[in-house]
């Protein structure tokens, strides 16, 4: 909201500099987002208010005139080209040296006077553009008639316009008077209310119009007044200036008065041309199916029965609380005005304006909730102005349909509640002072305050609402900082989160860069990595109103995101890259929120760095991915088994499921080159995924432990010939489970070889064996005997033989 300081000062004295005022307002009332100083560059000596005494033709130019002006120092002649200059006007007048905006270039420059077409000019009568007020350079700025002659212009119309963001529940702050009341309470200054006096004519408003509310649930109050003898025309300069500063466009005096009073009080008003109201009656009712109304913005609106209309004897004349209809608009021929000031159900106004996609200054106020009593206040103020400014003669009495006036709530605020909520007490006198200044009624009974909020504060209805009023004015800076007392809640074990966060840290430690991607992706990207047959993943949830089409679907796989991150960085990275993301797959479920399945997805690939940070000939491969998985799981205290599987978008023969015990906890693979190519990745790229739900189940509460043996282990290397299709893991499993004379054998593969010297259909595995007994040092003979037993077992189980 635009808040001109000059207007605010009608109701409350403000003598703080703008920055200090902005801080006080932000601390206690509403957020000041900035402010604009009007007239900052107007030198008080050089730019002043002048009166135009006479306008005469220029002897040498048809389009120019000679204006005689008085700045309080006797008549001066100036040459002027403005079409609208006229005797009797108050105008802005500048003399040599004033800083002005050049009418043509738009730049700020110093005024230099010179003779124009042979006539010397004593100064310059200024346009809005030259004053920096707007781009209007058509004519001169005409000042309010009561502007003091000779006064510095900055005193007459200089201003500070604050830009204030108010709250969704505070319609009263959308009125400058409401704002002033808060400023008065905060600064301790008195509030001056606007003049609401007027003289009623002998005719009764009720003789002109009747009001029947047919939808009392949506229309809580409807007041109508009648003003005859309207002299329609432009509103006075002071009113136009205020409307413009507050961000509205002047239209005519009647419409301007309704807008002015709305900006002033926060209560929207609407003026009808009485002679266009058919049947001399007003009926607020729901729209009928099929009804339409062309609103003031010349758009034909389709109405539906949930919408409240203001109707006359024949049909809709306004969309209640949002916008009037063209059929009853005030125009130059208007003689009598029917002024509507009403109160509507806020939810209904909001629904209708959302449905019609029509937001107006009126609807923005109504939807926040306005007290119904404000209607008569605003009526009186508008009638005062219509009488003063538009020559109107108000008929006697309001036609006031107010089916169920609401009693103001009475709130009991126990004094102890203040300290209970805030941590500090506020003295009774201070409570009374603050609440009274804000317009509340306060009485004390025993240990409690009985508080009645003013009619413009329907947002206050609980004791804690009152406490907020108190503390914000009392000052949050008086609130001390204290420490939470009391007992701590019980800690809940969160094993999954623990495993997830540990994995996150480990992945980074293993050289993977963490990325975080948008969780909404495109159907096209998802389809690259998700099988159309994957019932959990192929039908992702979609956003109704995505921010962009490439962010429509909630991802059911992280693979696309991480591959995209890989591809995006390949443009500026030459060497190996490793990325991971921890996130969830949003898996749709029957009749419930989706299952948010937590996973870690990592991708890696590219040329390993050599000395000097240069990419070398060797590329990362499947075993780099698997090695990372093994290290990660090792840290988590589990050993995994890897089984060949086939999976969509991954390269067959280069894909393994990772299992721990009974649980499948993830997979590791080379991304299918065809799929990688869809991401513009032209090199082998690998990924692994860990699924935290099964992984957490697979991790034992306590890791296994055995004390270190006191006896040295014996080591032997073996070269075995095994069938080519027997996985190394099978060989190792046979060795691991072989038992002989209480000796444990562990084994690691240190080479795999196929080719020359190895029979077709077989491969050679080099295996390092370690033998250990818990009760003795193993001798050479022991080891040889055990190894022979092991070789027999390997031959039996796998067809493996010793390579010689």
């Amino acid at each position, binding site marked *: 909201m635009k808040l001109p300081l000059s207007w605010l000062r009608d109701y409350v004295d403000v003598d703080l500099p703008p920055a200090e005022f902005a801080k006080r307002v932000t*601390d206690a009332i509403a957020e000041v987002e900035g402010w604009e100083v009007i007239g900052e560059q107007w030198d008080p000596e050089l730019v002043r208010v002048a009166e135009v005494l006479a306008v005469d033709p220029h002897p040498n130019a048809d389009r120019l005139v000679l204006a005689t002006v008085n700045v309080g120092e006797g008549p001066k002649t100036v040459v002027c080209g403005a079409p609208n200059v006229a005797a009797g006007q108050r105008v802005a007048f500048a003399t040599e040296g004033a800083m002005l905006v050049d009418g043509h270039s738009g730049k700020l420059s110093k005024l230099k006077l010179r003779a124009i077409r042979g006539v010397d000019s004593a100064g310059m009568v200024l346009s809005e553009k030259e004053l920096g007020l707007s781009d209007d350079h058509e004519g001169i700025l005409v000042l309010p008639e009561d502007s003091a002659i000779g006064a510095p212009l900055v005193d007459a119309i200089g201003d500070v316009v604050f830009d204030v963001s108010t709250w969704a529940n505070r319609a009263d702050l959308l009125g400058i008077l409401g704002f002033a009341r808060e400023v008065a309470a905060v600064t301790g200054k008195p509030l001056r209310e606007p003049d609401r006096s007027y003289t009623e004519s002998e005719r009764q408003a009720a003789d002109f119009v009747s009001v029947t509310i047919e939808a009392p649930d949506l229309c809580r109050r409807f007041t109508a007044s009648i003003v005859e003898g309207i002299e329609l025309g432009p509103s006075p300069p002071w009113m136009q200036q205020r409307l413009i500063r507050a961000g509205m466009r002047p239209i005519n005096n009647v419409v301007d008065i309704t807008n002015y009073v709305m900006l002033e009080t926060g209560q929207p008003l609407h003026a009808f041309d009485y002679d266009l109201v058919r049947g001399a009656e007003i009926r607020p009712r729901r729209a009928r199916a099929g009804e339409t109304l062309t609103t003031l913005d010349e758009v034909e609106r389709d109405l539906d029965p949930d919408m409240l209309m203001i109707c006359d004897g024949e049909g809709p004349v306004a969309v209640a609380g949002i916008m009037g209809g063209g059929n009853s608009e005030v125009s130059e021929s208007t003689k009598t005005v029917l002024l509507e000031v009403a109160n509507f159900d806020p*939810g209904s106004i909001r629904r209708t304006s959302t449905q019609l996609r029509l937001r107006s200054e009126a609807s923005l106020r109504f*939807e926040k909730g306005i007290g119904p009593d404000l209607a008569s206040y605003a009526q009186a103020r508008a009638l005062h102005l219509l009488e003063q400014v538009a020559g109107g003669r108000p008929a006697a009495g309001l036609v006031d349909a107010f089916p169920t006036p609401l009693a103001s709530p009475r709130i009991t605020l126990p004094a102890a509640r203040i300290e209970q909520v805030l941590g500090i007490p506020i003295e009774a006198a201070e409570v009374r002072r603050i609440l009274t200044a804000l317009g509340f009624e306060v009485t004390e009974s025993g240990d409690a305050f009985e508080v009645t909020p003013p009619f413009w504060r329907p947002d206050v209805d609980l004791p804690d609402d009152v406490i907020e009023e108190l503390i914000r004015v009392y000052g949050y800076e008086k609130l001390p900082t204290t420490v939470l007392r009391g007992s701590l809640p019980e800690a809940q074990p969160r094993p999954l989160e623990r495993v997830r966060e540990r994995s996150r840290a480990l992945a980074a430690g293993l050289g993977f860069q963490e990325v975080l991607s948008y969780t909404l992706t495109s159907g096209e990207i998802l389809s690259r990595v998700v099988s159309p047959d994957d019932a959990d993943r192929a039908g992702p949830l979609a956003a109704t109103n995505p921010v962009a089409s490439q962010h429509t679907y909630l991802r059911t796989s992280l693979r696309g995101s991480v591959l995209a991150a890989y591809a995006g*960085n390949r443009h500026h990275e030459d060497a190996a890259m490793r990325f991971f993301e921890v996130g969830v797959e949003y898996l749709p479920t029957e009749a419930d929120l989706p299952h948010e399945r937590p996973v870690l997805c990592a991708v890696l690939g590219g040329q390993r760095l050599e000395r000097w940070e240069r990419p070398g000939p060797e590329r990362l491969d499947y075993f780099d991915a698997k090695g990372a998985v093994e290290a990660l799981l090792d840290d988590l205290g589990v050993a995994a088994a890897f089984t060949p599987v086939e999976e969509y978008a991954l390269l067959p023969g280069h894909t393994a499921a990772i299992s721990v015990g009974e649980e499948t906890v993830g997979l590791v693979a080379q991304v299918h080159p065809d799929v990688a190519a869809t991401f513009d990745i032209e090199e082998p790229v690998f990924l692994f995924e860990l699924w935290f739900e099964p992984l957490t189940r697979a991790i034992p509460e306590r890791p296994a432990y055995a004390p270190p043996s006191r006896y040295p282990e014996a080591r032997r290397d073996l070269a075995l010939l095994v069938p080519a299709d027997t996985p190394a893991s099978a060989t190792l499993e046979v060795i691991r489970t072989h038992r002989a004379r209480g000796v444990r054998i562990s084994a690691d593969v240190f080479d795999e070889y196929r080719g020359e010297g190895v029979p077709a259909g077989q491969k050679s595995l080099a295996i390092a064996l370690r033998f250990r007994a818990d009760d003795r040092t193993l001798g050479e003979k022991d080891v040889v005997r055990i190894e022979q037993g092991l070789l027999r077992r390997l031959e039996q189980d796998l067809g493996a033989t010793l390579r010689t």
Partner: protein
Amino acid sequence: MSTIEAEVDALRAEALEALAQADDEAGREAWRADWLGRKDGRLTLRLRSLKDAPPDQRASLGKSLNALKSTLEGELEARREAARADALATLSADAALDVTLPGRPQSLGRLHPVTQTMNDCIDAFAEMGFRVFEGPEVEWARYNFDAVRIPEDHPARDMWDTIWIDTLIDGERKMLLRTHTSPNQIRVMEQTEPPVRVIVPGKCYRQEATDATHEWMLTQIEGLAVDEGVRMSDLKGTLYAFARRLFGADRQIIFHHSYFPFVEPGVEMAIDCFLCRAGGDDCRTCHGTGWIEILGAGMVHPEIIENAGYDSSRHTGFAFGVGIERVAMLRWGIEDIRHFYQNDLRFLRQF
């Protein structure tokens, strides 16, 4: 000079001369074997032949030969020591490294700056006894809005532009991407009894255009404490400790009035600008006000306390919500929020 002395002197001279010729370790080792070798070193053999010497000379010859032996051993050791010292001197001087050359590359991963900041925030609150709770990102409209007092027809809904999910459950239950972590206030209170002291980290979403300070996906941390005797001054104390932990021990904080439907009273918290120290009218961060708004907070609305089945006359609570990206931007001076989710290594590897 006795013959014994002459013989020993000659041996010494010959041995030392030979040692002087040995200019590397192999030569010194050969010399040692030649003279002092246990089996057939010349001095060893000569000592062994002592028993053949005339008895009256045996003692003085033995003494002289043993003295020679320790002289030779000492000389050898000295030569070796000198050679080692020479080698080290060469290593430090002629073979000195250019220690400024780059190290051998290691692969290094980092946590995302949002994760790092989140972890720091969690640690700060965990020290004050807050437990971590997590809730769903896809949320019921009821939890996201209605249960936190933002009914459908209230303009407060405009405070959160919402991304809706196109699936309606049972023809009426609407799903959305949570716009804030506040629905978890309800989820936590539904599941537990006081005392409640939790933080809820997680992603949130807004249907809004992005610019340097607005992103449609964001990360929040929600805080909630409900118990008998929880006061707004405790909220201030908690957030004060948080601000000092994250932004420096000399931080000051202020509250100012704000409005969130689920708290009463509601405030916004600002910290004093540590970039310009309230000195700069042209400070891009605080715009010359000296204060930087970093979070919204307030006392949990009594209706929400009651709806959870707690007694609002006994139990009071506070809640707050921190935007993690905003905290991260302030910490590192990041100028544009849109960097966070572009996954550009040139950005990510700086943290």
